[in-house]
């Protein structure tokens, strides 16, 4: 994420929320719905930037998870919604605020039973590649594996 190029357009949030619905048409999927994106733009004066999970090499959230619902798979931090009980320990420990309680009724796969949500690089939805990266109009968001 390079904030120099971020316009603060929040499109990444819409594409993220859309990706979670697994629907085909964005307008139909998001119209009149509260969106709950896993990437979030912070705006402060003329500064804009988007924050999503950093997939840390030393992930505090995974280490702190009380149930084992959070794990590292192929360098991506994944969450198993079946094992998450919504204690919010991960929310309390993520230094970037990149894990959030799921909002009831907001954009999420129906019946997913999700209690907290975080970026999983679109591996858990039908898209398979990060949609925030793909659709950022100014290429401010990039996906790089920095080892």
């Amino acid at each position, binding site marked *: *994420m*390079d*904030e*120099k190029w971020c316009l603060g357009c929040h499109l990444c949030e819409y594409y993220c929320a859309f990706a979670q619905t697994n629907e085909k048409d964005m307008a139909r999927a998001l119209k009149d719905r509260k969106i709950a994106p896993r990437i979030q733009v*912070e*705006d*402060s004066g003329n*500064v804009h*930037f988007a*924050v999503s999970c*950093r997939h840390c090499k030393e992930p*505090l959230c995974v*280490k*702190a998870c*009380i*149930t*084992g619902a959070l794990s590292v798979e192929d360098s991506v931090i994944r969450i198993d919604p*079946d*094992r998450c*009980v*919504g*204690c*919010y*320990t*991960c*929310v*309390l*420990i*993520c*230094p*970037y*605020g990149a*894990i*959030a*309680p799921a909002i009831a009724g907001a954009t999420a796969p129906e019946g997913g039973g999700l209690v907290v949500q975080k970026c999983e690089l679109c591996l858990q939805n039908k898209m398979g590649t990060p949609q925030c990266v793909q659709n950022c109009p100014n290429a401010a968001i*990039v996906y*790089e594996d*920095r080892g």
Partner: protein
Amino acid sequence: MRYMIIGNSAAAVGAVEGIRRTNVRTDSGREILLISDEPRHTYSRPLISYWLQGKVTEEKMRYRGLDFYDKNGCILLPPKKAVRLDADRKKVFLAGGRELDYDRLLIATGSSALVPPIPGLETVEHAFTFMSMDDAVALRKILTAETRALIVGAGLIGLKCAEGIRESVRSVQVVDLAPQILSSVLDETSAKMMQDHLEKKGILFDLSNSVDRFDQNRAFLRDKTQIEFDALVLAAGVKPSADLVKNAGGRVGRGIVVNDKMETSLPGVYAAGDCTESLDVSSGEIKVMALLPNAYMQGECAGVNMAGGTASFTQAVPMNAIGFFGMHALTAGVYTGETYVDQDQEHYKKLFYGGNHLNGVILINREEKAGVYTSLIRERTPLDTLDFDLLCRQPGLAAFAQTGRDAILGGVL
């Protein structure tokens, strides 16, 4: 190299994963030996109240998958208690007399319930502690829709138990000596909010009071009132299980004394988790912080060092994420210094700061980006390097200087 771990919970699992990330297993290597007196696959202890409530099955309580021991080259011995340690000869003795040799040993024995010596306790037919799956199973066995439950202790364990059984019993009454609930976690205002919420869900409180004595199913309280009950849960606190190290001549304060590498004063012996005491960086005090995240991280640190790597754990802070019937409290650090408060009927945020540091935070129903606050407390971030006014109102990375943010978010290469 034979690694031995006494314990099978968060610190033990952290150690196994720490050993294996440092010393990748060879096919023949099953050199990690785990000793526990519980006949169970590793499970998440905090989930026992969720299990009572019917929110998780026993299967979902597994802290790691069924292949965990195999995958990591571990042998979980048949359940036996380790009763003695001889650090000079590098031997551990099990109940029943078996003796085992080790090269590196981790004590991850956790803590046990502190049972207050209340007269007449031995006359109570159904008395429980609430620390383990066995405790939860025993409690559930006797609960009926007619059960009147009495819980001594309005801390995390007592109240999670109260939540866990509320729906399935006739009444739940909680007695505590302190004038507020959750006195080690919340301040007065937030405790009152949580108490009101719990009372609305039908839990009864009797605070600033204590049990003088029991006579079978009757408790006689300090204020001369009496409570009749069918099941008693004692949740008056926990104590570190430090006897193995203590009896072997190792240094023990309130918990086992360890350094940053999780080494005890005994050569080749490490300790991690609830059985230890450690430095709370937010207050500068040595404390027992019986918390699962710290246990895992200490265990992992011990494991890396046991396997010949280099790790240190220096950022322990008290930290609690705890919810009751949908109301969530997130807290971290110590509650001293100047304060910033933002509250309404259902939400509460209180920040404690001083000496250019954030010392502590209490949040009720204000989860958003809470970890940004915790991180400032853990890292002892100087507050004059960021926009603290903005941060008080809105936790986020916008309050940081751009260079710091670029380091986190990537910037351009």
